[in-house]
C-alpha cells in the first residue's frame, strides 16, 4: 500500500530541497524566506491533489490509502505511526497558536538603512584635492589623528574606541562600504556626521562626529584620499 502516495511525497521532498538548498546557490540568487518556500510547497501539494483526483480511478488510488491510514483499518505496523500523527498534529497546531499569540521578549526590530540617500547638494561633488602622494600621506595623517580611534589603524572599523558603539564604525576595507560609494558621499558623511543622517539612517544612534565643526573642507577631502588608499579601495564611478 501507499505506492500512489510515495511519488507525491518524493516530489514534494525534491521541490523542498531545490527551493531550500539549490536555489540559494545559483549565482546572483539568495536564500528564499521560509514563508515563500511554504507557499511554493502548498502550491505543489494543491497541484498534486488536483492531478490525482482528475479521474475517479486515480482519485480512489490517491485517497484510499489516506483513508485507510486515517481510520487505521488493516494498516498493520503503521498503527503506531498513525497514533503518533494523531497526537503530534493537535500539539503542532497548539504550538503554532502559542507562537502567534505569546508576547515577545525580543526588543522591537530595527530596520536601519546603512547608506541612505545624501541631500542633493552632496551628490556628484568631485574631490578638489589632487591625488598626489603628498596629499594622500597628509590625508592618512589626519585619518590617524581623527578617524582611527574608531575606524581603526587598519581601516577595518576595529579601533580601540569602537567596541561600545552600535551601529559599529564602518569597516572601510569591506567592499560593501566606501567601495560602493562616491567621494561626494563620504564628504557628506564626514562633514555632517551621524546627526546629519535622514530618519531611515537612525541618526540618534550614530557616534560619528559632525566634523564640519572642527575640520576645514580641504582636510576632509584629503582624509577621503587617505581612506581609499589605506583601505585599498576605489571610489565608485558611473562610467
Amino acid at each position, binding site marked *: 500500500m501507499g505506492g500512489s502516495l510515495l511519488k507525491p511525497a518524493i516530489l514534494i521532498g525534491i521541490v523542498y530541497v531545490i527551493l531550500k538548498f539549490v536555489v540559494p546557490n545559483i549565482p546572483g540568487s539568495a536564500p528564499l524566506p521560509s514563508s515563500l518556500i511554504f507557499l511554493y510547497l502548498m502550491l505543489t501539494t494543491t497541484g498534486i491533489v488536483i492531478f490525482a483526483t482528475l479521474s475517479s480511478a486515480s482519485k480512489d488510488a490517491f485517497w484510499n490509502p489516506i483513508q485507510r491510514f486515517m*481510520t487505521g483499518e488493516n494498516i498493520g505496523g503503521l498503527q503506531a505511526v498513525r497514533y503518533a500523527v494523531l497526537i503530534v498534529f493537535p500539539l503542532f497546531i497548539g504550538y503554532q497558536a502559542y507562537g502567534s*499569540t505569546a508576547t515577545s521578549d525580543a526588543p522591537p526590530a530595527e530596520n536601519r538603512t546603512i547608506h541612505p540617500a545624501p541631500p542633493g547638494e552632496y551628490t556628484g561633488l568631485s574631490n578638489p584635492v589632487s591625488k598626489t602622494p603628498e596629499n594622500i600621506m597628509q590625508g592618512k595623517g589626519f585619518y590617524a589623528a581623527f578617524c582611527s580611534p574608531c575606524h581603526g589603524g587598519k581601516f577595518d572599523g576595529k579601533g580601540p574606541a569602537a567596541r561600545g558603539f552600535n551601529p559599529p564604525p564602518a569597516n572601510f576595507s569591506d567592499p560593501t562600504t566606501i567601495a560602493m560609494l562616491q567621494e561626494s558621499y563620504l564628504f557628506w558623511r564626514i562633514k555632517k556626521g551621524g546627526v546629519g543622517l*535622514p530618519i531611515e539612517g537612525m541618526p540618534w*544612534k550614530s*557616534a560619528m562626529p559632525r566634523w564640519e565643526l572642527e575640520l576645514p573642507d580641504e582636510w576632509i577631502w584629503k582624509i577621503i584620499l587617505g581612506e581609499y588608499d589605506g583601505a585599498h579601495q576605489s571610489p565608485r564611478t558611473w562610467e
Partner: protein
Amino acid sequence: MRGGVAVTAALLLGGATLSMAQEGVSVSAPMVKGALPVDDPNAAVWSSAKPATFPMSPQVHWPNRIQEVTVKDLSVRALHDGTQVAILLEYADPSQDPDDAAALQFMVGDKKAHFAHGQPMAQVEGGPVNIWYWKNKDDKGVDMNAQGFGTLKIQSHQDVKAKAAYANGTWKVVFSRPLSTEHAAEDTQIVPGGFINISFAVWDGRKDGAGDIVEKGSQKAVSSWWYFRAEAPPDYSAYYYAAFAAALALGFQFVLIRKLKKGQTA
C-alpha cells in the same frame, strides 16, 4: 519520533532567544513582591534579575574627547514592584575616588533623542533626554535633562534616588525612581511591558600625576542606546489559546475519522 523532533525544535528555539537576551541588547526588570532594594546594592533579591552586559566606549563624539577609559564593560540588572523601579550598575574600577560617577540616560516622550545628550539632528526633530546621575562624594541621585550640548540642567523636582557600594575593585550603584511621574515632559515614563531606550555613562574619578581628574564632563565612558523593559505581570493567555487550538484540532480529527469510518461501512 516526530514528536521528538518538534520538542527538540522548540528547545532549540527557546535556547536561541535565551542566548540573545544574555548578549546585552535589553535590560529586563522582573516584577518582585516586597520592598525593592533601593538602598542595598548587595541585597540577595538582585540575583532574581538576569544581568545584561554592555560594552563601553570612550566618548569621542564631541570635544572634549577622551581616547581611553577605565570601564570597558557594564553589567546591569533591574527590578520593579509595580510602582517603583530599581536599576543596579556593576563595573570594575581599580580605585575608589570621590569623583567616581555613573549615569543612566533615557529618551523623554515620543521623539527620538541622540545618545549624546539629545544633540540636535539635521533631518530629524529630536526630543530631550532624561539623565539619572550619581557621584561617589555625594552618594545621591540627581535627576537632569538635556537637549543638546551645554544644556544639561538639574530638574526642580528630584525623583531619582541613588546608593552605591564599593568592594573588591567593583562599584555597585543602585538607581531608583517611581515607574511613572507627574512630569512627562521631563521624566522618562516606564510602562510595564513596553520597551524604552536606555544608555549608560561612567566616569573614573581618579587623578593623574598633575592632580587633574582624568575622566570628567564629556570625557567619560559611554554606551550606545539599548533597550530597557519593566516586565508586565505574567500573561498566560497564549497558553489558553494554544490549548483551545489543540483541542479544536483534536476534535476535527475525531469528527473526520468518524465520518471516514461511516463512509467505509456504508
